[in-house]
């Protein structure tokens, strides 16, 4: 917990903590004066849904209709399970999945292509 001036200091603190040997995951509760992240109060809507009392049943619920959610749904669909996938947007693949470059190498060698993008081309 704590407060710093800039958002980049919040991120830096998270990275510093993650860099400590033996640390795998970091919960970063530092806030910055630079940006105020508003938390919307959903308690009214939650109460409304509870009052409606509409209950659906499923064996597996997958939250998120990106490529991970859809791949998991497909993989589990081979079993006799009642599977439900929920997506908050009006279509699947609306966020990170849609706006990404995908490259796949046999053997999955990870970050070998991370670069500074300094590469330049001849003008034509």
């Amino acid at each position: 917990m704590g407060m710093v001036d800039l958002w980049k200091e919040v991120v830096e603190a998270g990275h510093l903590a993650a860099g400590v040997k033996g640390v795998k995951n970091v919960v970063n509760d530092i806030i910055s004066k630079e940006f105020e992240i508003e938390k919307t109060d959903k308690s009214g809507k939650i109460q409304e849904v509870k009052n409606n009392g509409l209950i659906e049943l499923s064996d597996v619920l997958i939250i998120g209709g990106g490529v991970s959610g859809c791949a998991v749904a497909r993989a589990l669909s081979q079993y006799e399970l009642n599977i439900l996938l929920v997506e908050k947007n009006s279509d699947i693949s609306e966020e990170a999945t849609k706006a990404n470059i995908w490259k796949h190498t046999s053997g999955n060698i990870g970050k070998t292509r991370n670069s500074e993008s300094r590469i330049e081309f001849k003008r034509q």
Partner: protein
Amino acid sequence: MYTQLSKDLGFELKRPGSLVVFYKKTEVLIARLLKFLKVTGLGHLIKPLRQFMKVPGLKWLNETEVNELEPNLKGRPIGGFWMTTMGIVEPHEVCMAFAENAVENGVEIKLETEVLDIEKTDDEKMRVITNHSIIECKYLINCAGVWADVIAEMVDDRFYTIHPRRGAIAIFDKSRKGFINTPCGVVSNTDRTNNTKGGGASLTPEGNMLWGPTVTDTPFKDEKTVEPQDL
């Protein structure tokens, strides 16, 4: 895996390979060392290199070969490393293919359904409160991407914080098709503070050239702004 998936699900997969271009002698020397470790099999003894050693179709190129493969590169590349088996797909198409196949197999997809809260029941089930209804389930799988930490927090599983980053990718018209033959990049720089996620020049399966992405830390998970300096 993706070769089979693309056949089974009918999405496009191309394997143009991926080229890392060297401009410094030290980069060439490191590449030669990697080649030595690969050829002799000694790389399998080094844990961080084990996965790398399993990759098929690696080629080490000299100056002439790089220029023949990519004649439009500026400067004088003195060598290159070509991972010939690297493939590219259209992520949206892959996601659609997975979803269609899942629905055919009986999965139900509910759109415009936002998770508001999650409660645990006494019989070890979970009651997920969405904006439409309550869904009671035995197993819950969190695939919420950049929102995954928010979902995890609903079940008091504070495990990590996601620091969102936004990026921009420039898409070139198909009239530039053939300008590059394989996605190209330069040697990795692990410095996080520069505003690139790596990548360099890439291709879509349809042949458009992509450039980027940039990367900028942002506190807002749904920010998709593109600013002039990104381009």
